[in-house]
């Protein structure tokens, strides 16, 4: 068993633990803002996840998914922040 074969499952399980912590904070964050922060962080963690999957599969086009995911997560977080203040989305 080479180092790569040993290390890749360890890295993937580390990121899965990250996702589990974010899901814990989403499920019982005391306020709505905590849940939004956890959703934002989960989006960023998923971008790193896609990077590791790109390395595992060796297909470079998967990085496009990471790019699109980062942008969509940003727009979603901004919309949620506007909603939290109580403004309409076109103000």
């Amino acid at each position, binding site marked *: 068993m080479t180092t790569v074969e040993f290390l890749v499952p360890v890295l993937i399980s580390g990121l899965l633990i990250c996702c589990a912590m974010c899901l814990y904070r989403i499920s019982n964050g005391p306020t709505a*803002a905590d849940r939004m*922060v956890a959703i934002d962080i989960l989006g960023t963690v998923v971008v790193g996840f896609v990077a590791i999957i790109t390395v595992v599969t060796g297909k470079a086009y998967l990085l496009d998914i990471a790019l699109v995911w980062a942008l969509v997560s940003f727009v979603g977080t901004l919309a949620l922040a506007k909603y939290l203040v109580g403004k309409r989305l076109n103000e």
Partner: protein
Amino acid sequence: MNEKIGLILIAIGVLFDLLGCVGLVRLPDVYNRIQASTKCVVLGTTLSLLGTMVWFGTTAVFVKGLLCIVFLLITSSTAAHALSRAAHRSGVPLAEGSVVDRYAEDLEASNNDEETTS
């Protein structure tokens, strides 16, 4: 050799991700959680993407990864700023033992200014 350096970078990135998420779970307050987890997770994801770029070593992956890193660095900080401002304006209280709240002081000062000028 490229593969080893890339894997080391990705491993450091995953470690930072883990530390940031521990901060997200353990810290007492939404503002503390924002400042701990955003910085750590953005650095970790940036290092993971850098490791992917080093692993492949081709121009297409380099450009895509660099674009992704730049977008991530701009958008995450903006999103965290907007979220903390929204949380403060919607009245989420600070944790027990917080000593200073500059944004509330600033809002109070600007309100006083408006009252005196009008």
